[in-house]
């Protein structure tokens, strides 16, 4: 067994430390998020008891914050698996410290996003109806199928590269991690001993999942867009909605990935592994996606605006100068132009600058989801006065609860799972250092004392 290099030892010490000593910040944040989540639960109980009438949704604007959140969370789920798979497939060496966090986001965002339509349904007892009476012709059923497939695929794609790291945690931490945690690492590591047969099987399984997950991820957000595009509503009558949604999903996904990376880097002192270049490269991706989204917007509004009908006229008025104008212009300027400018100038192309750009993008993309849902439904279908939608405290509390749940599950993940793929990072480091000491899949197996032996 090859001896562990100083770099690997330092890496493992740094990455494994939060699994044993999460720190006070973790406890405080966890408690805070738990309170917010609890408020969300109370709101949901209130909604269950009294029905959807406690929300701001009515017959004319029948979707609101819940579906906005659903589209947003499913969107950011693309951060992970898709980005990670694309970077792996393109053998982008700089990806290694990024992929694990990205894959976390996918699984957590899918879980939280998947809850949103159930909350929106109002009657959760009717969820089995989807399976009992679901029809092939319905995009809702396609959505259910695509999201559940993506969730299973993403869990597998998160788990496979994690196996060698779980073995490292098992061996380095031993029982000092706690009895339950140690039992978890033992079973989750699948008896990993870094044998040639195991490496071969793992490599092949990862390759299969890498190839499989990209079309699944694309299909998921395409199908989510079809829920809108296949409904007769003027702003949704678009043939490019699928591509528009996929691009938007990657865009918002990268933004949330940057935010989470910055947070973990700061809290867990991962400065040696999450370098400025990682933020800058992701910043370039943000700028590229911003340009693509901007192009989609211009194309969409130009084409529909050139041959307007009454509904288009109504939509343009409310978006450009009416009720949603503030949202719309922030989305366009704050969510696209400003981030591109931040990335474009060397002076602002710093970690802090890119985090600001990512925060703007994340907020702008949530807002975009909001007006795609609410503004479009506001257009009257018959000759009636347009109605307005204002979320009630129940919807706001549930939205806050959903974001809190997102944070909570991430916190639980980082308590159990190494946030950086140690074996891949070590391998990449070895390549960069120019020596081939490590085999293809080389987790540094135990030659250390239990408890980390830092």
């Amino acid at each position, binding site marked *: 067994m090859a001896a562990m290099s100083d770099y690997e030892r330092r890496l493992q010490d740094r990455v494994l430390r939060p699994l044993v000593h999460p720190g006070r910040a973790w406890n405080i944040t966890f408690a805070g998020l738990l309170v917010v989540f609890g408020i969300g639960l109370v709101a949901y109980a209130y909604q269950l008891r009294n029905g959807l009438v406690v929300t701001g949704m009515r017959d004319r604007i029948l979707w609101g914050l819940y579906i906005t959140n659903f589209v947003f969370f499913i969107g950011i789920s693309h951060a992970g698996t898709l980005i990670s798979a694309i970077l792996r497939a393109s053998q982008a060496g700089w990806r290694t410290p990024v992929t694990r966090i990205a894959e976390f986001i996918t699984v957590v965002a899918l879980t939280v996003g998947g809850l949103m339509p159930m909350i929106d349904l109002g009657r959760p007892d009717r969820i089995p109806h989807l399976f009992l009476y679901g029809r*092939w*012709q319905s995009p809702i059923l396609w959505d259910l*199928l695509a999201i559940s*497939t993506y969730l*299973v*695929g993403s869990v*597998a794609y998160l788990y*496979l590269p994690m*196996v060698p790291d779980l*073995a490292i945690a*098992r*061996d*380095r931490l*031993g029982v000092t991690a706690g009895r339950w945690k*140690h039992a978890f690492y*033992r079973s989750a*590591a*699948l*008896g*990993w*001993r870094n*044998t*040639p*047969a*195991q490496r071969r*099987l*793992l490599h*092949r*399984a990862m390759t*299969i*999942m890498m190839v*499989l997950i990209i079309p*699944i991820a694309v299909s998921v957000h395409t199908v989510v867009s079809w829920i809108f595009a296949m409904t007769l509503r003027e702003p949704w009558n678009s043939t490019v909605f699928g591509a528009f949604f996929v691009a938007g999903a990657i865009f918002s996904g990268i933004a949330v990935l940057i935010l989470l990376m910055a947070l973990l880097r700061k809290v867990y002192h991962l400065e040696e592994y999450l370098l400025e270049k990682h933020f800058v490269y992701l910043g370039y991706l943000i700028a590229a996606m911003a340009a693509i989204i901007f192009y989609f917007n211009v194309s969409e509004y130009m084409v529909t605006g050139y041959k307007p009908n*009454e509904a288009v006229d109504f939509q343009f*008025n409310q978006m450009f*100068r009416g009720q949603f104008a503030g949202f719309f212009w922030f989305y366009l300027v704050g969510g696209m132009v400003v981030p591109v400018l931040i990335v474009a100038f060397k002076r602002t192309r710093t970690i802090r600058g890119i985090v600001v750009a990512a925060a703007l993008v994340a907020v702008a993309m949530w807002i975009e989801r909001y007006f795609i849902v609410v503004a479009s439904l506001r257009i009257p279908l018959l000759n009636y006065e347009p109605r307005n939608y204002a979320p009630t405290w129940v919807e706001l509390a549930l939205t806050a609860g959903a974001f809190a749940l997102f944070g909570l599950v991430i916190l639980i993940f980082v308590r159990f799972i190494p946030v950086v793929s140690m074996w891949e990072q070590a391998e990449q480091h070895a390549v960069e250092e120019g020596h081939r000491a490590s085999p293809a899949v080389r987790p540094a*197996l*135990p*030659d*250390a*004392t*239990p408890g980390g032996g830092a």
Partner: protein
Amino acid sequence: MRRLLLLLLIAALTLPATLGAGARRTGAQATEPMKVRIPITDNGFNDQPTDFTVTVPQGQLIELTFVWEQQIHVNDEHIMILEGYNLEWPQIDVNNREASLRFVAEKAGSFRLKCDLECEIHDLLKDGKLLVTEPGTGAAGGPDTRPETQLALTAPVGASLGNKVAFSIAAGDTTGAPIAGAKLQLVEVTGFYGLDPQEVDVARAVTAADGTATLEYIARRTGTRTLKAIFPGDSQHAPASLDVQLDVGDGPSLYVVHPPTGIPGVNRFFVSGIIIAVWGTMFIVAMHVVGIVRAGRTEGSGEEDGSV
């Protein structure tokens, strides 16, 4: 003394004039004009792209004010005119937003209100109407003395779901003479999810020279449907309406399950094939995981947890 007499003389001369003026003012207050304000928006008169009509009784003093309220075509200018009365309002635009004229609606009938300039929304501002109703039409609040209108309706007794039903409606006066150009409306009186029944607009038509018009209705719900033919009245004829019941029986489903044009081979089996392929591939991955566990057991030695 002479000065006092002079003052008395002046007072005697001016008092009747002052009192007369006061009397005239009082008279003017009694005939206060009917004030009508018409906003001009980007959608036309009062935000209504079509069918904009101001109705006033004959002989009414009116103060008609056009108010410029456009938000998109901000450079638009309008000079409104009222045909038949030969009235022209001063120009309105973003700087001069209001123009008023006061006149007496002496002539009865329908008169066109329109913008006399080639503005951006000219199409929306060329068909406004001032409808001056003769006394006795009820429009001014008095009794409606217009002659009654008779409506007669011909329709099938029953229909099947999805059928298109043609209602032939004839409008005539009390003498049986057909009324040409009468605007007819067909509404369905229906409730929705327990709400009170409402009149839902189904079709509209204008009668031909023989006083008849055909209005079509698509039967979308089974059971006894209640429909109503409505003539809202005009300057010559009183309003009238006629209820009719239509029994709608079962028919073929209105929901089209199969697309009119299919792509050969793209069907549920094709989709099932894709789903099976995806999940089958994931099953293969799961088998790899099992393989990893087995490989660890066969090739490994001792405890996995390092046993150090």
